[in-house]
């Protein structure tokens, strides 16, 4: 890895900084996390709407995200099953463009080409040859769930909803317990090896506070990634779905824009044309917290039954 990337690990974070002019003190380290700031006034809810039908897989969003957030490269290794070379969302890749290469598994269905019949490929023929396959591309990111399991799980309060109702990890508070990773049904959050903390998309909180569009949406050349107030995005997305239906793409639908029985709406939602699992999304995401009270109840019952059994033996036992 390049030295510039390694050096990132040594960069102290805001919460680790000693008081101005003072040396690092244990007292500061102990007490600083308990300080509370004034919560910002609520703003209009914002989010992402990603139209996968116009994504061209250029990965400009990934690059813009890395550049703005000063994230190191991931090595750019080929995954071996697609043209994707960044693999997955990680602590250092907060955007990831998924390449879904849907081509016939049967070789005979493939178009004839120079490697099959030994002739030179004629460019004139290409437009007439029906394409037997397609690429689906989707720029994946944190879903910024309205009721986020990661935020519910976080025992330190590091994960919170910002004034824009986006899910944000306070890097100076997170202690790397990894419970948010276990809770996320979308596999978004990852713990970094260089600092032991969880990291994910911030929805460019810093840029939003300054009235700027998130870096990825700004860089997207096809407007596949759209940023804005959620109500506007939902309206725009529905219009696009209607338009696609009119053009014969009956499989187009929105994923995560509305709540389901077991999950809240996503503040980063998608227009898809295949089943969610094809894009690596859960078909029916479940917020694990819907089971929590029942699980506690069963544990309490179990404890009481065991203690009652113990007492019965103690009082009825022979000695």
């Amino acid at each position, binding site marked *: 890895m390049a030295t510039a990337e390694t050096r990132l690990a040594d960069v102290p974070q805001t919460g680790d900084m000693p008081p101005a002019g003072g040396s690092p003190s244990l007292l500061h380290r102990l007490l600083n996390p308990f300080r509370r700031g004034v919560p910002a006034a609520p703003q209009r809810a914002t989010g992402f709407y990603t139209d996968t039908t116009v994504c061209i897989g250029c990965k400009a969003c990934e690059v813009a995200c890395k550049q703005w957030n000063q994230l190191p490269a991931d090595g750019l290794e080929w995954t071996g099953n697609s043209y994707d070379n960044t693999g997955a969302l990680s602590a250092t890749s907060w955007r990831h463009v998924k390449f879904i290469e849907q081509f016939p598994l049967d070789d005979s269905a493939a178009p004839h080409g120079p490697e099959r019949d030994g002739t030179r490929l004629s460019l004139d023929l290409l437009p007439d040859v029906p394409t037997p*396959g397609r690429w689906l591309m989707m720029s994946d990111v944190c879903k910024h769930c309205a009721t986020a399991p990661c935020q519910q799980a976080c025992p330190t309060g590091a994960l919170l909803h910002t004034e824009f109702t986006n899910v944000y990890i306070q890097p100076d508070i997170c202690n790397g317990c990894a419970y948010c990773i276990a809770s996320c049904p979308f596999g978004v959050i990852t713990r970094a090896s260089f600092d032991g903390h969880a990291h994910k998309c911030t929805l460019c909180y810093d840029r939003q506070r300054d009235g700027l569009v998130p870096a990825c949406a700004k860089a997207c050349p096809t407007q596949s990634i759209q940023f804005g107030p959620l109500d506007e995005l939902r309206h725009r997305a529905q219009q696009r779905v209607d338009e696609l239906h009119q053009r014969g793409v009956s499989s187009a639908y929105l994923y995560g824009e509305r709540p389901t029985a077991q999950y809240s709406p996503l503040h980063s939602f998608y227009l898809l044309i295949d089943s969610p699992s094809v894009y690596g999304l859960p078909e029916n995401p479940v917020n694990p917290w819907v089971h929590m009270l029942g699980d506690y109840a069963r*544990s309490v019952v179990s404890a009481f039954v065991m203690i009652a059994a113990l007492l019965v033996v103690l009082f009825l036992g022979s000695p």
Partner: protein
Amino acid sequence: MQADSHVQATSSGYAERPVTKPPNWHALVAWDTTFNGMSTGLFVVASVCELAKPELFTPVVTLAYPAALLLLFADLTCLVLDLGDPLRFHHMLRVFKASSPMSLGVWCITIFSLFATAAALLTLLPIPDGPGLQWARRLVIGIGLVPALLAAIYKGVLFSTTSQPLWKDARWLGGYLTASTLVLGCAEMLLLATLSGYPEAADLLRYALIVLVLLCLLTLALFCWEVRRDLARLNRAKLFRAGLLSIGLGALLPLCLLCAGSYASLESCTAVLVLLGGFVMRLEIVRAPHALT
């Protein structure tokens, strides 16, 4: 765009790949869960025994409370070391979130540690014995039972309140781990009673352990039934080995040994087997999402 026509004979994209990521929890978490069970279980069983039959169990619990405190230190050490940034452990105490089993658990362990320390001090310190001291002890262990039980209960709920394969469908995981915690506590009490030479207490604990192990197997059966599909996806050989160690050697063999009769050496071996079985089961539970993703 030709959406529908392509779907039939094409690849399934990411459909075969796991969506979730397993957390960075490995053997240290299994040790943490085991020490948590051993500490809280020992405290709860010792408290119940002392409150129910003080004349029989007071000599045994003088060893049990300090042992529970030592095990709690071991648990806390594992808990801290397992964090990505152990120096930030105290950040857990900056908020209390009822929605987070981990937050609830940390607070319960913290409160339990105060009662465990008080119980151990009241047992070990050379204070003249009298009705005042006995009442103080009973008050400490009586109130301490609540945080001890909650600290025992939260672990299973912590695992089941996630999106990880196997854990997410295990509605009885919390019930099983709670039952197992009390089994561990009873086994430890049996070990202490046997090693410190209190055969009457040991005899009663032997019967108690038989009943508790049977009840625990019932909760285990409920847990395994719920996650049978995930269990079927696991490596058969590894699953058999884990089952043999945790259920065979950790529950069924001890049951046979306990029914064989009251022999000090046999009871000690039985208690150790139960403890080992409890650890193996916890290790396999912690590893399950890694094996399935």
